[in-house]
């Protein structure tokens, strides 16, 4: 497609979702992180068997943070959402397709929005059978409510990752459907995501040419780092970048990319500036102790450069913007993907979030081009 075209071709097509209102001279943006929500749990009922619907009503979700639903670190705003993203007709932000279309997809020239369902989706639940049933229901709900009626939206296959076999079954069930563009996991799993128990998930993702997204959050039962549980949401929020580092470190050092050379991993909502320092750290340790990890044939930074993508939200904001441009250069301009995190409070606008001084061609790469080679969009 022509990226310099004044209006994205997809937006020229008036479909059932209503007329597109992309402004001239705007990029056709690929947004790597959009969060759909259900209006209420009832929305999932058609997709759950009676057994699991009854289970959900009777026992509820049981996650490894001990909470029935509310977050132990209360957010800064209700549901961590933009105040202007609450639908007039009621329901939670992200639950109204019409508002998502007008406010975000049309308003921000989104050509494709990649969905990542969060909340009590069953991921990380103690009860593995319940976890699998919930994830399947969420995927079916996602398809019926969002990706079928709105072709700009692409689903993330939510997998019950603590049950590898069930996860593979879910990828086999949803993978053939072109409405899904990625496999969706969370960074805080019970074991670091490079652990052998998760490998069949990567094998399945690779088979369907689906990238694996590791989105921040999840309830591993472990504090955010080995240093214990912090007190505040500000620490939890800033600390997500540590869970991202755990994931990348683990995938590389455990040899996942050696094993699955076609695998692409997208780190979502943890920012990106942490990546160069981690790469250099791993390289230096690899140089010292490669005899411990003989399964690695290349330097950690080479695996990272080839297989790991990072989304840009929340945008890094140092006092001196040259510092963030340095970091982007070090990561590689072809490895950064724009993400908005709509409808959450720390939303990034594709046309305002980037530092001044970013060359237009770089902006175009990040917002419109790179995503095309990562997500399964056709």
């Amino acid at each position, binding site marked *: 497609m022509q990226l310099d075209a004044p209006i994205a071709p997809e937006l020229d097509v008036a479909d059932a979702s209503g007329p597109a209102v992309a402004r001239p001279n705007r990029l056709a943006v690929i947004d790597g992180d959009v969060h759909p929500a259900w209006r209420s749990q009832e929305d999932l009922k058609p997709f759950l068997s009676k057994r699991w619907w009854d289970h959900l009503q009777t026992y509820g979700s049981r996650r490894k943070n001990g909470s029935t639903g509310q977050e132990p670190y209360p957010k*800064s705003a209700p549901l961590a959402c933009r105040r202007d993203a609450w639908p007039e007709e009621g329901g939670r932000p992200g639950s109204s397709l019409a508002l998502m279309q007008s406010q975000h997809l049309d308003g921000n020239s989104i050509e494709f929005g990649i969905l990542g369902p969060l909340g009590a989706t069953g991921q990380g639940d103690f009860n593995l059978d319940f976890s699998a049933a919930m994830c399947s229901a969420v995927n079916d709900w996602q398809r019926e409510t969002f990706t079928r009626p709105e072709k700009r939206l692409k689903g993330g296959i939510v997998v019950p990752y603590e049950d590898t076999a069930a996860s593979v079954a879910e990828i086999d069930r949803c993978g053939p459907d072109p409405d899904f563009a990625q496999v969706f996991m969370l960074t*805080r799993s*019970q*074991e*670091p*995501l490079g*652990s052998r128990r998760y490998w069949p998930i990567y094998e399945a993702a690779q088979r369907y040419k689906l990238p694996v997204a590791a989105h921040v959050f*999840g309830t*591993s039962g*472990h*504090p*955010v*780092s*080995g*240093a*214990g*549980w*912090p*007190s*505040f*949401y*500000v*620490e939890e*929020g*800033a*600390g997500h*970048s*540590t*869970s991202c*580092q*755990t994931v990348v*470190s*683990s995938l590389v*050092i*455990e040899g996942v990319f050696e094993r699955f050379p076609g695998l692409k991993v997208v780190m979502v909502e943890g920012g990106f*500036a*942490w990546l160069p*320092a*981690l790469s*250099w*750290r*791993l*390289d*230096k*340790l*690899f140089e*010292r*102790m490669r005899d*411990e*990890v003989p399964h690695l044939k290349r330097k950690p930074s080479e695996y990272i450069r080839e297989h790991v993508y990072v989304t840009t939200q*929340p945008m890094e*904001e*140092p*006092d*001196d913007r040259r*510092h*963030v441009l*340095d*970091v982007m250069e*070090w990561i590689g301009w072809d490895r950064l993907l724009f993400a908005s995190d709509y409808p959450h409070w720390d939303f990034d606008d594709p046309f305002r979030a980037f530092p001044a001084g970013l060359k237009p061609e770089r902006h175009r790469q990040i917002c419109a081009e790179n995503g095309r080679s990562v997500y399964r969009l056709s």
Partner: protein
Amino acid sequence: MSTEWAGAIDCDVHPRVPNIRALQAHMDEYWRDTVELRGIEGFESIAYPTNAPLTIRPDWREGKAGADEHVERMAKALLDRHGFAHAICNCLYAVQMIRDEHMAAAFARAVNDWVKAEWLDKDTRLRASIVVPVQNPELAVEEIERCAPDKRFVQVLFLAMGELPLGKSYFWPIHRAAERHDLTIGIHAGSSYHHAITGSGWPSYYLEDYAAQSLGFHTQLGSLISEGVFVKFPKLKVVLIESGVSWIGPYLWRLNKFWRGVRNEVPWIDRSPNEFVRDHIRLTIQPFDAPASGAEVGRLIDQLQSDEMLLFSSDFPHWQFDGDAMLPAGIDASLRRKILVDNPLAAYPRLGGRHAT
């Protein structure tokens, strides 16, 4: 001796306790007997496996023993060779790993007295950190009070990973005692191993364990700032030791941004996290996670927005560099002087720089 490093202050060297007998000699009768009765062989954590390449640089190994077991060997490899003015001993004997707080206190006392007898008393250039039983702040304060009259103790030592983040009010009696005695707080890479090493559980390889230590520093920095430790203890200085350095800029960008967004949660924080860091946080320079070339190093140091943040360290005997390449490339002469001498003096009041004692 070259003059290139003359007068430098090495803020991180590691004396190794050779065996349990060395500590028994500094225990009271009850604990000496307990060690015998229960067959306690000592506490070594998996943080630095003795034979792992990182733990002791090849030319600092002598047969089975490392040069870190004897003060003379360490002095020969570092202080005599380069003419350092001081070196600060951080003993990593795994007191923090012990589950019994009374035993931890006994071992902390023994470690501190052993360091005094075998290292400080044998080389006047040496200074040391006080190892404390973090398992019980009251006992930790007792140990600080016991050691503080000896001005050769310049710091209170924590590990990057314990049971609770160090900003929590649980630890404030320790911070208060440190501030009262002009002792710096040192946080060193390492874990009590009371939690999994990462937020997603235990990794398989030692390489990952060491890599993950920098994540503990992220948590500690966020905690110290958010809980208001530096509002409560405005004289306190905290040194992040063996943290990797280049993680801090990007983490601070996040912490600053989140703070701007949600600062109503921590209303006692009256300045940006950036400002607290410039005023209170320092980092030792080894290891410095960066490519060998100078270009990135210069840009990374620029991220620190201050030439007062970095303190010289060899991290002896850990294998962080070869030969005498103790500083990363790309550091100019004036910054070099600050890193080697001025910044350590400012970070450690007990070294006699700003507050002669």
